[in-house]
C-alpha cells in the first residue's frame, strides 16, 4: 500500500498579507481557502475533506469547518507544529487513496505579528505537558532552543557562523524577486554575522521573520486533477516522524528527518540526487543545515560546507531551495512555515515560480519541515512531488 500517484495537489495559495491588523484569524483561513479553491478551479461545495492544525481557532477542525460551512466526510487536525501541513498533504493522499474523500482542503493562518509574538519570548506549550514544569522555568523560548542545536553543531562538526549565514544570503537572493516578501534586500555573509546576537550563536539575521498571513492547499483524487486545467503535481512519497530527548539521551546533532526523509524517498522511488528543487523549513539558518544533512543531501556534519558559497541559490547552486525567500525573508505565517514550503514547491513544479528563480526542467521537488522545537522535541514531515 502506497500513496504514490494516488493524489495530486490541484490548488495552492499563499495569502499576500504579511500584516493583518484589520482581519481575524478565521477570516485569514477562509480567504486562503477561497484562493486555493479558485487556483484549482474548484468550489467550496466540492470539498469533502478538511485538514488544519493548532493555528485554527476553536476545537480541532470544528470551528473552521463550520465557519466555512463545509460538508465533510473526512476531518484531520494532526498538529506537529509548523510542519503539520506537509504531513496533512500525506494524510489527505492516504484518505483519498482509501476512498475517504476526493477533494481535501488544508488551511493555515495566523497573526503573530499583529499580536506581538516573538521567538525570543518563552511561552508555555501546554501547562499540563509533562516537560513544562522542568523546562519552562529555564526561559526556553524558540530561538535559544534552536541556538543550542547550532552551538552543538559548531562544537562537534566545526560549523561556522559564516556557513550558517550563507543560508540567509541564499534566501535573500531569492526574496529580492518576490514582491510579497517581508525582507527583499539582498544581504551578505558579513551583514548576517554582524547583526546583533539574539541567542548565541544565532544572530538576528539567522532568524526567520514574524509575519501574519496564511495559506491553503487543495489535494484531490487523480480523476479530478485530470479534469482540471492546472498543471499536474502528483504526490509520490511522504514520511513523518518526531524526535525528542529520548529519556535524557539528548542528541542535538540530528532531527526527525533521519526517519521521515528515507521513508519519503523509499516510497517515491527517488534519491536525494533526483531532487531538482527543495523547500526546506528555515525557522533559523541552523534548521536548514541539520535537515539537509538528515535528508541525505550531504554527509552528517558537512551541512555547513554544503550550504556555503551560494550552493542553495537557484541558477548557480547545486540545491536550489526556498525560492520564495522562505521563512528567513518572505513569510512565516502563524509562526508555522510548513504550508508555504509546499506552495513554493508546487509553483516550481508548475513552472510558475518567478522567472529569475524558476528551476529549469523542475520535475521532482521535495518539501520538508520541522515543527515544535528542534532543540527539545519536534515533528518532522517530508513530502516528494512530481510534475506529470
Amino acid at each position, binding site marked *: 500500500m502506497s500513496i504514490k500517484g494516488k493524489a495530486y495537489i490541484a490548488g495552492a495559495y499563499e495569502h499576500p498579507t504579511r500584516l493583518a491588523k484589520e482581519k481575524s484569524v478565521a477570516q485569514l483561513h477562509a480567504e486562503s481557502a477561497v484562493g486555493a479553491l479558485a487556483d484549482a478551479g474548484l468550489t467550496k461545495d466540492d470539498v469533502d475533506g478538511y485538514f488544519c492544525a493548532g493555528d485554527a481557532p476553536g476545537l480541532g477542525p470544528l470551528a473552521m469547518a463550520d465557519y466555512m460551512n463545509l460538508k465533510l466526510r473526512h476531518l484531520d487536525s494532526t498538529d506537529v507544529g509548523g510542519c503539520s501541513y506537509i504531513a496533512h498533504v500525506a494524510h489527505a493522499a492516504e484518505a483519498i487513496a482509501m476512498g475517504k474523500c476526493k477533494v481535501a482542503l488544508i488551511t493555515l493562518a495566523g497573526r503573530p505579528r499583529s499580536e506581538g509574538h516573538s521567538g*525570543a519570548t518563552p511561552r508555555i506549550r501546554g*501547562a*499540563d505537558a*509533562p*516537560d*513544562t*514544569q*522542568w*523546562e*519552562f*522555568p*529555564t*526561559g*526556553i*523560548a524558540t*530561538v*535559544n*532552543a534552536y*541556538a*543550542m*542545536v*547550532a*552551538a*552543538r553543531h559548531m*562544537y562537534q562538526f566545526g560549523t561556522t557562523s559564516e556557513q550558517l549565514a550563507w543560508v540567509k544570503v541564499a534566501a535573500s537572493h531569492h526574496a529580492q524577486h518576490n514582491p510579497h516578501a517581508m525582507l527583499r534586500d539582498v544581504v551578505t555573509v558579513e551583514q548576517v554575522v554582524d547583526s*546583533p*546576537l*539574539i*541567542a*548565541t*550563536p*544565532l544572530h538576528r539575521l539567522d532568524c526567520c521573520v514574524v509575519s501574519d498571513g496564511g495559506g491553503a492547499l487543495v489535494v484531490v483524487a487523480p480523476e479530478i486533477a485530470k479534469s482540471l486545467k492546472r498543471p499536474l503535481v502528483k504526490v509520490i512519497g511522504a514520511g513523518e516522524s518526531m524526535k525528542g*530527548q*529520548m*529519556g*535524557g*539521551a*539528548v542528541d*542535538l546533532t540530528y532531527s526527525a528527518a533521519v526517519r521521515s526523509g528515507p521513508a519519503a524517498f523509499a516510497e517515491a522511488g527517488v534519491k536525494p540526487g533526483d531532487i531538482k528543487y527543495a523547500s526546506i523549513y528555515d525557522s533559523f539558518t541552523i534548521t536548514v543545515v541539520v535537515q539537509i544533512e538528515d535528508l541525505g543531501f550531504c554527509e552528517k556534519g558537512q551541512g555547513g560546507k554544503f550550504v556555503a558559497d551560494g550552493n542553495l541559490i537557484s541558477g548557480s547552486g547545486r540545491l536550489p531551495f526556498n525560492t520564495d525567500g522562505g521563512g528567513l525573508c518572505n513569510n512565516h505565517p502563524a509562526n508555522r512555515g510548513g504550508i508555504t514550503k509546499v506552495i513554493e514547491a508546487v509553483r516550481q513544479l508548475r513552472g510558475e515560480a518567478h522567472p529569475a528563480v524558476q528551476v529549469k526542467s523542475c520535475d521532482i521537488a521535495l518539501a520538508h519541515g520541522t515543527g515544535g522545537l528542534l*532543540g*527539545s522535541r519536534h515533528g518532522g514531515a517530508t513530502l516528494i512531488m512530481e510534475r506529470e
Partner: protein
Amino acid sequence: MAKERAIPAPMTNPETEAFWDAAKQGKFLIKRCTACGKAHWYPRAVCPHCFSEKTEWVESAGRGTIYSVSVMKRAPEVYAVAYVTLEDGPTMMTNIVECDFDKVAIGDKVVITWRPTKDDGPPYPQFKPA
C-alpha cells in the same frame, strides 16, 4: 554579577511532588528504573527506556558537563539555557548561572545550585561552574 531573571514557579503534579519536596531540602532526585537499571530525565513514573513502572527516586550528586549552551542576549536580564549531562547518565535542560556569559562553553564542568522561584514555588535546579 548582573541582575538575575525571576524564575517562574514549576507547575508540579502528583507524579513529581516528591522531587519538589526534596528540592525544598536541597536534595536533587532523579529517577532510576529498577527493572532495566537505567536513569532517565525528566522524571517519570513509567521508565522511558523499558516501559517498566518500577521506577524509584535516587539522590544525585548534581555534577555534570555542559552538552550545549546558549546565552539569551535579547532579554531584560541575560541568561543561559543549557543541556547538562549528569554523571548519573541523563542529559537535562537547565540554566547555567554564576558564570561569565562570554566564556561559558560546551564541555565545562558544572554543579547544581538551587534558585528560588516566583509565587513561593519550590526551588528550581540550575548549575554553576564546578
